[in-house]
């Protein structure tokens, strides 16, 4: 079956089809979900190679669970986000070997101030500030404001209440605003009226 024909098919239906031996479904799911998971893992880990490993591992787990997938229990993307979150958390814990809520010192002296690099710089600054947030706040902020997920879905991914998600995102955004304030000029926000 051509991949275009699978555009309107839900992730869950594709996963079940894969579980029944449909190779085209595997291709469609790979195209649809791998970029999302890679992007999320890359933001989380700030390391492209590690993010690729995590995305691959998460997709592998998806392939393995396909025959046992329980219809209607969870969205496939939600399940994957949860797996990626857990894999990233494990990697960061091993890497850092420090407490979960320990906040690293912000990086000083951002590089290049050339105008052409402005956007890159801004995103880098955001990534750095995100990386300095406590783990749960970072996960909630990234899932809500960059991945664009709804609070109930984030609650499911992080296994917490919706109220806790709201609290985490609010605190995370406030911490980000504070952390990025010192770079206002570099970021090009000096005239934003605040």
């Amino acid at each position, binding site marked *: 079956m051509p991949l275009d024909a699978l555009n309107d098919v839900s992730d869950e239906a594709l996963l079940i089809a894969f579980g029944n031996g449909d190779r085209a479904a595997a291709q469609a799911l*790979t195209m649809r979900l791998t970029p999302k998971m890679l992007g999320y893992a890359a933001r989380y880990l700030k390391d492209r190679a590690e*993010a690729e490993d995590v995305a*691959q591992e998460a997709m592998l787990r998806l*392939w393995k669970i396909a025959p046992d997938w329980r219809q209607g229990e969870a969205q496939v993307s939600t399940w994957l986000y949860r797996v990626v979150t857990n894999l990233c958390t494990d990697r960061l814990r091993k890497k850092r070997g420090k407490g979960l809520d320990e906040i690293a010192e912000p990086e000083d002296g951002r590089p290049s101030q050339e105008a052409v690099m402005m956007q890159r710089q801004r995103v880098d600054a955001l990534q750095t500030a995100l990386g300095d947030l406590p783990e749960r706040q970072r996960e909630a902020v990234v899932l809500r404001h960059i991945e664009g997920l709804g609070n109930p879905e984030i609650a499911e991914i992080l296994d917490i209440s919706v109220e806790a998600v709201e609290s985490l995102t609010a605190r995370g955004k406030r911490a980000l*605003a504070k952390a990025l304030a010192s770079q*206002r000029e570099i970021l090009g926000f000096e005239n934003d009226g*605040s």
Partner: protein
Amino acid sequence: MTDRDDKRTGELTDVALNALFAEAREETALPSGDLMARVLADAEEVMAQREAEEAARLSAMRPKQRHPVMEAIIAALGGWRAVAGLATAGVAGLAFGLGAPTTVTALATGSYVSDSALGIETSAGGYEIDDLMPSFYDLVTEG
């Protein structure tokens, strides 16, 4: 609604922060062809493994294959129907032998004469009518 960044001096406004989030969203890392190939290869491997397990499960449920020599013997004898006929004949022969050994012995060793003029068969040489039928007493004595 929960954030009031725009009212805090020295902090980035919500608008600025949202603009940053939007830029970050645009900068989504695109997966390399290598990563996509690896993910698909994993899918293929998992699928192949599952198919192999399924095949093994099905073959375990199927009756075991006969030895090729046995298969050749059965084929030479004319297949399973012929073998079943032979087996039945063998068992019947065994039953006759066990049930009326004297009858069998008489039939095997006596001479047989046919009286064609009368159109009936008589035993001129050694057969009596009893020889042709299993004897009740024989059956009783043989058990």
